[in-house]
């Protein structure tokens, strides 16, 4: 009968650390327009409050926590999503104006707009008639 009883060996601390290390890699689309680079990432279950976007030393990090209101005592039957955090990092080119990055999240889809610095924008050069 011993095998049937539930073992409670993991302490909350190790469980917490394990949960931290378990991350999902969100799928992204990256497009480039004339004046900005656009990143679109799928992060279902992430709310504006649990989404964290940081730029540090030319690296953009996109992290989010799945926050779903699940009832107490929910036991899993089947699962394909097996972690609660998304994380992905991008190295930014020097052309990007990191001060002007903007983001929004809409139905679990994150849209990031990374504008180019003014000096790197495409500009038209007038051709003078000779």
């Amino acid at each position, binding site marked *: 009968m011993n095998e049937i009883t539930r073992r409670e060996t993991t302490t909350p601390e190790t469980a917490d650390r394990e949960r931290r290390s378990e991350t999902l890699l969100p799928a992204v689309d990256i497009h480039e327009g004339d004046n900005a680079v656009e990143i679109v990432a799928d992060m279902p279950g992430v709310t504006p409050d649990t989404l964290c976007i940081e730029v540090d030393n030319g690296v953009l990090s996109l992290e989010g926590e799945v926050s*779903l209101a699940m009832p107490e005592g929910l036991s899993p039957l089947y699962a394909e999503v097996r972690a*609660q955090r998304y994380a992905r990092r991008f190295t930014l080119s020097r052309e990007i104006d990191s001060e002007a990055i903007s983001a929004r999240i809409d*139905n*679990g889809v994150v849209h990031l707009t990374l504008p180019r610095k003014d000096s790197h924008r495409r500009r038209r050069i007038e051709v003078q008639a000779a």
Partner: protein
Amino acid sequence: MFGDLKGLDPTRAQGLEWFQQLLDEMFPGSGAADIRSVPHGSFPLINVGRTDDAVRVYVFAPGLGTSDLEVSIQDSVLTVSGRRQAPDDEATQTRFRQERFHGDFSRAVALPEGLDIDRAEARFHHGVCEIVLPKSEELKPRRIEVQAS
């Protein structure tokens, strides 16, 4: 929550999802190793959980709205189908990455018997569709009184 789900899969190395994804990108179409596993990149991903009085299905469908997702149940098989629009291409010069799914999809999961389909509810929260399927009365846990002899 679903944090303890990794216990379901003893062969999975922890923290190596990125490597698995890399391998899947390099060698697509490698056969499924587990009878319950799905090919990587399936859309949408589905979690199923159970409480004492209901079965809850979580469909991770980012960017979809109520009108884009069709949920139906027949013979204890739940089918979710729909279509996710391709991203609009205006003002795009170069495309560096295209990992997100777009197009038509349809996925089915088998549910336990004895659910009360008529009282089922589905709701969207932040790109996750939660479907609550209450258990019928005979399936709910019941306490059995122990009689003194």
